[in-house]
């Protein structure tokens, strides 16, 4: 085990602004992403993941200007997701100063993208995002394009296949729990953790720092959240918060 579990804010960007959707829909405006990165810097955040939710859905492609601004302000590891569909794009992103590339839609619609990116950057920099939604009959569907398209794979199958193709990390996200503050979908996370040997990031549903504990106990290498770090209270006022190193450590039980 790493001494410190990683606690990762996931920031969603739309039209160049930080936004926060609920269950993958609707968007609350949060603010300027660069300002948020500066605040997270001061709080010595473990890692940041920034996803441009327009890149694939609106076909806007990778927003290099935004990435450049973020990279020059971030003194912590940063992952970028949104519209990454080739090794050349991934290389350009890491060349700017981003450590990891998150592959979402392309990982399922053109799986060889994972292998190409992994061969170019190394598995450690290749994160595959698996977005899951509960099926009425039980289990989960893996969806792409911000929850718009089904893939026919379970999250465990999608994760296993991603690892076989070269992913060095899997980010599993519960669509049902996003921005609900109802805690992680632990059975979902466990199903993915047991399907792979690479590190798994849990996302979707964390409403308080205590929610990290069961996900970490289940074997997640990192716990991620959106709303928890950028919104406060039932009126969802914008407030950037992050646990102190002492709090993170006590969550890890050491």
């Amino acid at each position, binding site marked *: 085990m790493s001494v410190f579990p990683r606690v990762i804010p996931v920031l969603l960007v739309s039209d160049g602004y930080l936004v926060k959707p609920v269950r993958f829909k609707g968007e609350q405006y949060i603010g300027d992403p660069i300002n948020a990165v500066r605040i997270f*810097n001061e709080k010595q955040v473990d890692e940041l993941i920034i996803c441009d939710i327009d890149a694939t859905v609106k076909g806007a492609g990778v927003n290099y200007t935004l990435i450049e601004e973020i990279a020059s302000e971030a003194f912590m590891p940063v992952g970028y997701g949104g519209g990454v569909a080739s090794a050349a794009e991934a290389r350009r992103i890491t060349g700017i100063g981003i450590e990891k590339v998150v592959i979402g839609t392309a990982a399922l619609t053109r799986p060889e993208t994972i292998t190409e990116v992994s061969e170019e950057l190394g598995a450690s920099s290749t994160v595959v995002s698996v977005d899951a939604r509960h099926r009425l009959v039980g289990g989960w569907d893996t969806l792409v394009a911000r929850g718009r398209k089904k893939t026919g794979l379970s999250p465990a199958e999608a994760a296993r296949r991603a690892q076989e193709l070269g992913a060095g990390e899997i980010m599993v996200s519960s669509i049902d729990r996003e921005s609900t503050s109802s805690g992680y979908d632990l059975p979902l996370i466990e199903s993915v953790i047991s399907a792979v040997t690479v590190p798994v990031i849990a996302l979707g549903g964390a409403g308080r720092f205590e929610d990290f504990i069961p996900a970490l106990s289940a074997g997640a290498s990192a716990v991620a959240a959106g709303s928890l770090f950028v919104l406060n209270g039932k009126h969802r006022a914008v407030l950037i918060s992050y646990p102190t190193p002492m709090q993170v450590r006590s969550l890890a039980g050491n």
Partner: protein
Amino acid sequence: MSVSLVDYGLGNLGSVVSMFKRAGAQTRMVSIPEEVLASDRVLLPGIGAFDEGMARLRDRALIEPLREFAATGKPLLGICLGMQLLLESSEEGEAAGLGLIPGRSVRFSEGDGIRVPHMGWNLLEPTRADPLVEGLPEESRFYFVHSYHVVPKRTEDALAMTEYGGRFVSMVRSGSVAGAQFHPEKSHAFGLTILRNFAAA
């Protein structure tokens, strides 16, 4: 004096430049042999696979200049893959490394709660006092992302150790040649201290 960053198409140079700027140090990119040889101190970054790293250095005819630079006794620091390239070889590939420090890189063994890559924040235990680690607070944490770690042949070349399913060498030093497995440019104030120390060396 400025820090020369080797630009061979395999590294997070943007972040390294930003962190040196924050440390108050000047940087410049070097990508041809003459620039490497004219440098005061050289930082070799790197993300990715061992053979790819050596191939890119070879394509740019930088292997011999880096060896020559190291022989002058001026400071050379490799970070992440750049550290692994300082040694002779790696389990990850077939290529010969720069061979500036005897030893090679091996892969972490999976199992027992050990997931590979070793990814995340971990502690550094320096084995001795050294200008590079001067001023680090106790319990300094650094960001690691790697599947392979170095095993120097001489124990005295290990400058710092880190625990991950056993202790591994997380910093090396042999004379003026040093390496750090973690990413100082992504390790907040702790990494800043190391890069500032290197810029002042």
